[in-house]
């Protein structure tokens, strides 16, 4: 995975919005809460200033405004950090967007501990849990630039509420933009292997791919599965992997409570009980530090995935 291009999925978001608007998405409007420079909706604002509404530092109102705009036939993308979108405005998303099932897209950047130096107050590791629990909510967590741009466009095309988690940190681009196709609700098998299935989301997919490469050198053949759609989960690809590999590891930059790991665990325990290890943030708050160092420290690295895989396969 060395020498590859790195792009933060928040940048992909800003660029995808511009691409959408340039290609006939006339009903697209973008909302931000004083974070346009960080969420990268500033890119859109530059190109389409009249379609970018700053709501000030008032995320709860922003979500309600987005709900109102959607009832007028517009497709609003409301943007903030994951902490303040999914966290602070949870109840607005639940009651003003989820309950009426309105066509609002919530684009939450700065998900996970890779926010880095800002520390725990800004490192949201609870958003999958919060958003998954809302009936009818689609939850997306793209893994690289190519997938993030595709996911934003798919969210626009989809009728209904969507939560998209994006990252601050520049991460490897491993999808081929030319051949890649994205579909909400479909997982993606990235490597072949039957010794262990590594089901990952977000920036952990690239780590899982690196881990699989290294594990292969030891003769352990891992099947890496990329789950962009946390909800609705692609049960088919999960069950197939469990049946064929017999051992499953989940990887996410999220609390091990309530995220991808538990979603997979629920499917497996009901339909195909399988040995499972969950890699994620172990029910603790993050802290300040460089993103790369934090990821390593919290076990969100290829090395840790490899260690867990070795233990699971050989143990």
């Amino acid at each position: 995975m060395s020498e590859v291009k790195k792009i933060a999925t928040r940048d992909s978001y800003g660029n995808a919005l511009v691409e959408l608007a340039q290609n006939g998405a006339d009903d697209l409007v973008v909302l931000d809460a004083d974070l346009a420079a960080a969420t990268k909706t500033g890119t859109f604002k530059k190109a389409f200033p009249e379609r970018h509404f700053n709501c000030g530092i008032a995320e709860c109102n922003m979500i309600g405004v987005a709900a109102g705009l959607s009832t007028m036939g517009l497709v609003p993308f409301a943007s903030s950090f994951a902490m303040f979108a999914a966290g602070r405005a949870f109840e607005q998303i639940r009651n003003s967007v989820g309950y009426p099932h309105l066509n609002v897209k919530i684009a939450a950047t700065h998900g996970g501990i890779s926010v880095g130096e800002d520390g725990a107050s800004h490192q949201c590791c609870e958003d999958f849990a919060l958003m998954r629990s809302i009936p009818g909510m689609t939850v997306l967590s793209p893994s690289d630039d190519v997938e993030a741009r595709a996911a934003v466009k798919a969210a626009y095309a989809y009728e209904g509420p969507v939560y998209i988690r994006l990252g601050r940190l520049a991460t490897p681009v491993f999808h081929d933009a030319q051949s890649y196709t994205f579909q909400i609700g479909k997982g993606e098998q990235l490597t072949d292997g039957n010794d262990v299935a590594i089901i990952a989301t977000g920036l952990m997919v690239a780590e899982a791919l690196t881990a699989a490469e290294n594990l292969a050198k030891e003769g352990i053949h891992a099947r890496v599965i990329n789950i962009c759609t946390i909800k609705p989960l692609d049960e088919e690809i999960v069950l197939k992997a469990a049946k064929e590999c017999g051992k499953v590891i989940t990887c996410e930059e999220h609390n091990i409570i309530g995220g991808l790991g538990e979603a997979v665990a629920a499917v497996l325990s009901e339909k195909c009980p399988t040995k499972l290890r969950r890699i994620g943030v172990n029910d603790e708050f993050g802290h300040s530090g460089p993103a790369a160092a934090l990821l390593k420290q919290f076990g969100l690295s290829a090395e840790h995935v490899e260690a867990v895989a070795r233990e699971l396969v050989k143990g």
Partner: protein
Amino acid sequence: MQEKTKINGNKGRCVSLTEEMKLALKKKACQVRMGVIESTHGAKAGHPGGSLSAADLFAYLYNRELRIDPKNPKDPKRDRFVLSKGHTAPGLYAALAYRGFFPVEDLPTLRHIDSYLQGHPNMNTVPGVDMSTGSLGQGISAAAGMAKGAKYLHQDVNVYTLLGDGEIAEGEVWEAMLFAAHYKLDNFCMVIDLNGLQIDGRTCDVMNTAPVDEKAKAFGFQTISIDGHDFDQIEKAFEAFHACTGKPTCILMHTTKGKGVSFMENQVGWHGKAPNDEEYKQAMEELHAAMAELEAAK
């Protein structure tokens, strides 16, 4: 210099209220009050107090102010109304039913299992409801979004929202007011029902929000204080809204909670309690007597 942003097809669209029109509105308001009693009695639950305080406003909105068509409740060009104080759904439902959005006979199914008349307004089940509300402080944000959307789309759509005086303790209300003023949403009209009571007691004791007029003015609103049971004053307030450009309007409507049913008036206990059979009978007798008086007045 204020920017002229209003399209405003409302302006001058109606002649002033005649005595005959006023009498008709009073009858409509009396019907709304009967609907509130019928539905909360049928539900054995619900919120009659704040529904009755706003009954005159509901009657005015749905029979004079809003440009709506019960036959085409989703008309994109219609005016919007968002009941931010969603618990007073009985008042809204009664106004909608008597305006022809759905059968009046359905009102007593309020809150029943499998009824489309949910305890709090549901835009996906009740014809004429423009936004699902119930969690206080949220409706006003959606209404502000609708008003912003209408402006962005250059549509002549006015958006109205009704809040309770207890509700305005929610911080989101003031976030929404900042937004409405910042974007000069002169097609946005918020009404605050100042009936002075909320669940835990008098609003001035639970959490004093006064002086609301000065606060709304400081937040950039045209602010008008009226008696919410006087149709002349209600009309004047909406005329001022139609005439105002460059800023949103806030109508402070002084009312009596439980208005129109003697034993419910100004009683905090009637915020969220349904009348039993005996109370129902007495309330309906009073309202029928009031209606008979209005009928005799012609």
